[in-house]
């Protein structure tokens, strides 16, 4: 059985560009998909590989799975922000001391770490800084670590959502909406190399299948 996949390709050499491509790869072989894409582009793949459809079978959570960078409570806010910016990620997975994913922090949560609390408590203060003052603000925020966010009672952290590898697209979508999760870990993936389902991949797949259904509906009309 073969997969078709499609991806937004972010080329890191020269000016970033978005390239869409389609290739055939073996089931679940994201690495092959990546190398296949990489072979045609000067640079490395940073974006998310989205498997679009599998011939003869409904799409499953494992078809959407992709690695996501993990951080821990000692990761600095600056490093976390860098990973989000470089990967265009909706959030990051936080692992415990054993490297097991435990929760997800959204990109906004990481941004919250960079902004001093006193500004968030009084938004009128946000405008009073000059350039030098703003640099100081970012410098102070960058030194904070993910653990500060985890320990902050103002930020509600919930356990990472786990989806079964054979869950259908509808199940995955429904569970992510229900948990308001942007990233879910694939239940049963290896602890040493956990794989995740990210919201953009789910959206892409939903749009693709939704679009196909819509087109079929249109043709019937």
């Amino acid at each position, binding site marked *: 059985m073969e997969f078709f996949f499609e991806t937004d390709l972010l080329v890191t050499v020269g000016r970033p560009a978005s390239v869409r491509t389609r290739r055939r790869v073996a089931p679940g072989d994201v690495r092959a998909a990546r190398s296949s894409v990489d072979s045609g582009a000067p640079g490395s793949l940073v974006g998310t590989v989205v498997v679009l459809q599998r011939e003869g079978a409904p799409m499953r959570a494992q078809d959407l799975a992709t690695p996501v960078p993990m951080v821990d409570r000692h990761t600095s806010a600056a490093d976390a922000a860098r990973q989000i910016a470089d990967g265009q990620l909706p959030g990051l997975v936080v692992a415990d001391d054993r490297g097991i994913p435990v929760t997800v922090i959204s990109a906004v949560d990481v941004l919250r770490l960079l902004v001093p609390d*006193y500004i968030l408590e009084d938004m009128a203060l946000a405008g009073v800084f*000059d350039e030098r003052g703003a640099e100081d603000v970012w410098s102070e925020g960058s030194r904070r670590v993910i653990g500060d966010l985890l320990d902050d009672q103002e930020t509600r952290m919930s356990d990472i959502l786990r989806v079964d590898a054979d869950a259908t697209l509808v199940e995955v979508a429904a569970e992510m909406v229900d948990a308001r999760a942007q990233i879910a870990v694939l239940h049963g993936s290896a602890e040493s190399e956990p794989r995740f389902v990210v919201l953009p991949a789910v959206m892409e797949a939903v749009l693709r299948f939704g679009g196909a259904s819509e087109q079929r509906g249109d043709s019937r009309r």
Partner: protein
Amino acid sequence: MTIQIALALLVFVAAYVLIATEKVPRVTVALVGAALMVIIGATDDHGVFFSEDSGIDWNVIFLLLGMMIIVGILRQSGLFEYLAIAAAKRARGRPFVIMVMLVLITAALSALLDNVTTVLLVAPVTLLICSRLGVSAIPYLIAEVMASNIGGTATLIGDPPNIIIGSRAGLTFNDFVINLAPIVAILLVVFIGLCWLMFRKQFAYDAERVERIMALNEREAIRDVPLLVKSLVVITLVLAGFVLHSVIGLEPALVALLGAGLLVLIARLETRKVFADVEWETLLFFAGLFVMVGALVNLGVIDAVGEAAVEAIGDNYFGAAAGLLFGSAIFSGIVDNIPFVATMAPLVDGLVTAGGPPAEPLWWALTLGADLGGNATAVGASANVVVIGIAARNAMPISFWTFTKYGLIVTAVTVTVCLPYLWLRYFL
């Protein structure tokens, strides 16, 4: 003692203990306590809703509600942040001068706003100033919250216990200003001296960082000039309404509600923003407390205690005032001063009614003791808890004992200073 009275006292004492230990949210305690009072027949619907002596004091509830709405809108203007940054720049970054200015601004604001709102406004900008200056914000935050408790003593609307006392005693805004503003001014001078003594080792700073203070643009803090103008006009009208109470004949609660209504009308903000600062839980807490205390009034417990107190005091009202002053300060340092004053107000009312004009200074002794006692410990006043929370979120933890160490000194000195004031002014 009947079983009903015994049960009512049990409910009351248990509620007090639960409020003091903070094991259960205080609003839950007050409402459950009120419900139990109704169930045991200590009060009824007429007693709860319509009785001036033993029911919910609607003047207090609606005065608080009106002021919460007005202040909630006013604080969105950025005025307070503007004042604090401008003061720091005028002080040219000198830490002690900045502290004095922030203390005075906080005390002045606190006389017009409730203490929690005041510290919510002043604490973030203090953290910003201290961060620019590279000094610890802890001494400044402690000084400010204490200044808010002192400044709030000066007026009817400065501190919730004052509103309870004003309503029960029929004291006006002007009565509070005339009787308490002079001693509050003296206390602030004394307090600034104490700040120098307590924090003098922490006033070292890097002169090169002063330019970071001077580079702050306070004008950017004012985000909505029309809203600022509208808010200032309304709050001026409301204050005029309080001052002219005897002329216009409107109760402070009505003045505040009319002001709130006018400001809501002309500010044209989203409903969510208009009512964002209304502390519904606090209002319900007050209502529950009034019902519990009212139940004891209904059962004659308060009268019995009052009669015993009248007998013990005789005509020694200065002794009673001194006892009330220090006793209130000690009690308010341990338990939230709101339930304490809600309980004591009907009791003092009985003493004043029995003693006539010579006993009236007892109201001021109760006010001074309850308000200033809030400084004694980290949990003595709601504003203390709020500031400690803000400091913790900004990686500047203030431990219970750090606060209490300074709080006990400030409370002992300020309450002691009040004693000669009461004697000279009312008993000499």
